[in-house]
């Protein structure tokens, strides 16, 4: 949902995010909603600048978000408002897979004490066949005990307000205030929005926390409607773009999976069969895959050679960020390109990462400043303490300064899928060059080196199309050609397509990224450069993929018969005369499919969906209360304790942690046991308004460095009282991965919570700081561990445990920041 739509919300729940601090301008719209009488709720372990503006701040134990959301689901389903207002039941019945009967092979965590059926102990993974639907059976009344709705109800039945108080530390009356606020602000004419960020994703159950929120929003009918939905607040300028056109190991552009050996993607056909879905939009997958291969390999890609499918490398394992670090340390990865990223501070277990960097043969560093990742060999805690000497580090490092945003053309995709073009104002100074320049000229050089070789690796590069014209004083590649390639064109006459609907799977079209198709419908017309905003959906400002739709699944903003659920929440609706969908947004639905359309028996793809099935990407067009496939750690969100937690799992005592978490059991990455007495305090890391992620773009900028010039950890007065620590004293934090010293900001904004009847203290620490730049401090990520969420492979930095002690580290030459 677009940020502007928050202004129409009746209740905004900010959880897993500190929006006012990390997305201040996005928070404008929350303030607008507040001025119109919306209730703002901030659920966070810490009272932060977001809580200061909220009507309700709910302190919660870091890592227990899912228990809280489960509590909300249980509260909503057992509330009389949910039963009395017909809208809720009708929304769930017609737009979700509530009525679907699940096969009897499925066993819930209630039956198997915290586990789902289909778990294979050796491989440590679920096999999802036992979660399948009982083909074709529906119970519209949703009373059958095996229908998804009833399974959900039973699954969350033990997430009572008392349980939430025990697990999350949130007093019952506070929990009920939140639940009532959300319930009364949901309905036909009222919508509640959730805003979240990495404090939800960065858990070993991160994906499930978000799917639990989606489940709650489906039950409350807040999906696809103005002022409703879930807004992911992403942290980098184009982190959304970098997952759409991914520099990620497991994806090809347009969320098409990389070919995987162990998933049987051995040739093009098996690959396409695995991705294609009989029903729903993914039925078109082959068109996008073939067009993508034509874009990369051009004329070399023909029907005979599977459109050069073999040249696309296949993955057979985990090469995510966390896996790459040990691969560097163990010598598998010998060369590294690091462009605008600072893993020596931002990566988990950053001491291991610095050791990995020291074991590389060569590294290419592209950053405007000499950040810690570029300077690890001559200035790092290990070098300062004498543990490591530059003379022992073999890494050959090339430091090439890049152009900064206003010195190069290009587009960013922001947190609401909006692609915006930024124009080049001036040429970059001296040796600074833009990334396209670097990639294009590196590619040209490599093509030359491999020009007359016959090896398979040479062949792989030779077939790649890499011929862009250049312009400007530094011979930058013309980005317009790159965008044309991304947008897609008909191969014969290179005529640009107007959208992914025109892409074919017979090799007649080429398209670099199908979801961005339509961004350049005509040569020179880059929709990302549109700059006509208005105070509705601003369709003339930039280009939102897919096809400029601003609210996804906005068909759900109309009832099954196509009429808006209410005048106040009108968004798109069926226009009987024009016989098409119309409204304030581009309909995320076939424009002319009547609401009462019913598919024929052998209908395929999107035609197989009914006229009242808003979720066009889902196989059956319905929102998933119960996810039969797609997530590797269970079809229904379940609360498991973070990998390191001071308390056991009250809901599932036999299964404290999620059973399928990928771990890195290595001597340099040890984990703490549950309830480990040596590390009794919950530690959560977070960001500040004044700094940017690993600090590379803020600790070196004087105006920002002076606003938060030194690292600190936030401690509650009660915890500080036990150690005799006063505001401003030095403290030391230790985990099995490392120990750091920092200053204590003793503040009432943190408080101990009662978990399982005993007090649990929480410590908060910003993770921007490092030894470089003008704002320095010890690196918080020296404490965190390499561990991953099973679905997204993101790490756990929002809830792990640590020990606290007074005073500084006995460092020999005062390695850390200034001493007083």
């Amino acid at each position: 949902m677009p940020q502007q739509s928050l202004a129409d919300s009746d209740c905004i729940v900010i959880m897993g995010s500190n929006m006012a601090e990390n997305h201040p301008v996005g928070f404008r719209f929350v303030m607008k909603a507040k001025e119109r009488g919306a209730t703002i709720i901030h659920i966070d372990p810490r009272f932060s600048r977001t809580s200061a503006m909220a009507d309700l701040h709910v302190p919660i134990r870091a890592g227990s978000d899912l228990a809280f959301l489960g509590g909300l689901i249980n509260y909503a389903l057992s509330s009389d408002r949910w039963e009395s207002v017909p809208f809720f039941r009708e929304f769930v019945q017609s737009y979700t897979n509530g009525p679907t009967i699940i096969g009897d092979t499925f066993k819930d965590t209630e039956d198997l004490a915290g586990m789902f059926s289909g778990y294979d102990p050796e491989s440590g993974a679920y096999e999802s066949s036992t979660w399948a639907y009982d083909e074709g059976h529906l119970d519209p009344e949703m009373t059958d005990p095996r229908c998804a709705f009833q399974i959900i109800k039973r699954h969350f039945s033990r997430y009572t307000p008392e349980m939430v108080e025990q697990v999350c530390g949130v007093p019952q009356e506070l929990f009920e205030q939140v639940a009532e606020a959300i319930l009364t602000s949901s309905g036909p004419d009222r919508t509640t929005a959730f805003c979240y960020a990495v404090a939800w994703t960065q858990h070993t159950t991160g994906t499930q926390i978000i799917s639990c929120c989606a489940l709650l929003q489906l039950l409350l009918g807040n999906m696809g409607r103005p002022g409703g939905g879930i807004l992911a607040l992403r942290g980098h300028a184009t982190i959304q773009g970098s997952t759409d056109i991914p520099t990620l190991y497991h994806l090809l552009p347009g969320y098409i999976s990389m070919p995987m050996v162990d998933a049987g993607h051995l040739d093009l056909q098996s690959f396409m069969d695995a991705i294609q879905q009989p029903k729903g939009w993914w039925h078109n997958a082959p068109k996008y895959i073939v067009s993508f291969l034509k874009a990369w390999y051009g004329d070399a890609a023909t029907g005979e050679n599977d459109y050069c499918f073999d040249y696309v490398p296949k993955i057979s394992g985990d090469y995510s960020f966390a896996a790459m670090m040990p691969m560097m340390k163990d010598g598998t990865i010998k060369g590294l390109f690091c462009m605008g990223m600072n893993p020596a501070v931002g990566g988990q277990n950053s001491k291991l990462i610095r050791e990995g960097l020291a074991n590389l043969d060569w590294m290419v560093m592209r950053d405007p400043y000499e950040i810690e990742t570029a300077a690890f060999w001559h200035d790092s805690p290990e070098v300062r303490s004498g543990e490591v000497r530059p003379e022992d580090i073999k890494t050959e490092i090339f430091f090439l300064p890049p152009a900064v945003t206003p010195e190069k053309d290009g587009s960013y995709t922001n947190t609401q899928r909006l692609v915006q073009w930024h124009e080049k104002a001036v040429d970059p100074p001296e040796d600074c060059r833009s990334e396209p320049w670097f990639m294009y000229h590196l590619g040209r050089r490599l093509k030359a080196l491999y020009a007359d070789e016959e090896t398979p690796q040479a062949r792989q590069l030779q077939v790649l199309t890499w011929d862009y014209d250049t312009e400007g004083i530094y011979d930058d590649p013309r980005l317009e050609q790159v965008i044309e390639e991304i947008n897609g064109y008909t191969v014969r006459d290179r005529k640009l397509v107007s959208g992914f609907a025109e892409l074919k799977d017979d090799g007649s079209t080429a398209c670099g990224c199908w979801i961005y198709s339509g961004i350049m419908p005509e040569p020179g017309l880059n929709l990302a450069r549109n700059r006509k905003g208005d105070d509705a959906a601003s369709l003339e400002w930039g280009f939102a993929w897919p096809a400029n739709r601003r609210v996804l699944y906005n068909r759900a903003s109309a009832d099954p018969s196509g009429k808006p659920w209410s005048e106040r929440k009108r968004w798109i609706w069926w226009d009987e005369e024009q016989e098409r969908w119309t409204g304030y947004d581009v309909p995320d639905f076939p424009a002319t499919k009547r609401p009462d359309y019913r598919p024929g028996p052998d209908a395929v793809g999107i035609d197989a969906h009914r006229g009242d099935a808003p979720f066009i990407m889902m196989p059956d067009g319905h929102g998933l209360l119960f996810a039969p496939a797609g997530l590797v750690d269970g079809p229904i969100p379940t609360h498991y304790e973070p990998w390191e937690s001071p308390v056991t799992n009250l809901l599932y005592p036999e299964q404290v942690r999620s059973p399928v978490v990928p771990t890195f059991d290595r001597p340099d990455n040890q984990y703490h046991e549950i309830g480990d007495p040596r590390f009794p305090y919950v530690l959560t890391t977070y960001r500040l308004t004044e700094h940017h992620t690993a600090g590379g773009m803020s600790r070196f900028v004087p105006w920002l460095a002076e606003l938060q010039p030194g690292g600190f950890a936030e401690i509650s007065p009660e915890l500080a009282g036990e150690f005799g620590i006063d505001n401003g004293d030095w403290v030391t934090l230790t985990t099995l991965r490392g120990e750091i010293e920092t200053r204590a900001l003793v503040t009432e904004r943190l408080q101990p919570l009662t978990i399982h009847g005993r007090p649990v203290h929480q410590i908060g620490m910003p993770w921007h700081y490092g030894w470089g730049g003008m704002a320095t401090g010890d690196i918080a990520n020296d404490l965190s561990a390499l561990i991953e969420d099973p679905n997204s492979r993101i790490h756990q930095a929002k809830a792990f445990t640590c020990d606290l002690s007074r005073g500084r580290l006995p460092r020999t030459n005062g390695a850390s920041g200034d001493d007083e």
Partner: protein
Amino acid sequence: MVIESSGFQRRWENRRARARTAGDEAKESYYGLPVIHKPHWDWWIIVYFFVGGICGAANAIATLARWHGGKEGESISRVARYLSFGMVIPSTICLILDLGRPERFLNMLRVVKLRSPMSMGTWILLSSSFFLSLLTVDQARRDGLLGQDNPLVRMLRWMPVRLIDALGVVPSLMLAGYTGVLLAATAVPLWTRNHLVMGPLFLASAFSNAAAAITLILGLRGRSVEGARHRIERLDLLAMFAEVALLVVFKRGLTRTVADPLETGQTGKLHRYGVLGAGIGLPLLLHGKSIIGRSSSGRGVSIIASALVLIGGLAFRYVMVMAGHRSADDPNATFEMTRKRD
């Protein structure tokens, strides 16, 4: 299974007294940070107050001594005039060097602001040094320093000395006193609390310093000017009594918080022992015999006493400026002055 709620009360009395938090530090005032900004003034301005005060007072004494004094008055007037002229030069230099941009000192003449003591002070310094230099030139002529009979001397004889003398008194007196008003017309609590007393206090101190300086010079000049010295000593004592009185009035007018810089710390000690003790108390003691016996004390005593007064005068200005800094830095002093008066 039902988990009964712990009915837990979220208070932590049993823990050790709560640690001092960021919230605690902002309870009394904004983390103890100053509300107003203190002036940058230190030694340049302190010296300027000292020499400026003497310059103004000495010129006034010189004029008054000539009108009333007869032969002894003449010698006092001569010493006072040359002393005053001697003090004008350092005053101007100190003022200019204290400026952030000394090269722009002439900008002081761009405007006449009656409500700005510094603007008025500039014009006062200008006019008093103008009259003073004329009178000093006349004095030099009369002492034959400019030669006996040359065109310059003949021309100078036409100078309406009495008129210039009369005109010069007012700016000189103002020069001696305006420095107090300069401090009073600021937001610094110590200075502005008792603004009416500041001018007179500085004036009194200037007179006692000038008188002491003249006494010192006469004392050093030996027996020939014994009578003149006794007269100026009388003025010195009068000025010192006035200064003590004004200091008492000043101190009583302050509340405890605002007076704190004069009570505690380095400025407090310097005030009690330097200004009051050495600067006024000791000299009065030394002159004690002459005060009771209504006779004049010996030369040695007079020299020591006047030297002490001068040191006390300098200490007084140092204390006033530095205590002003502390007062400006103390938020509670400012809040005391500006609390809501409903």
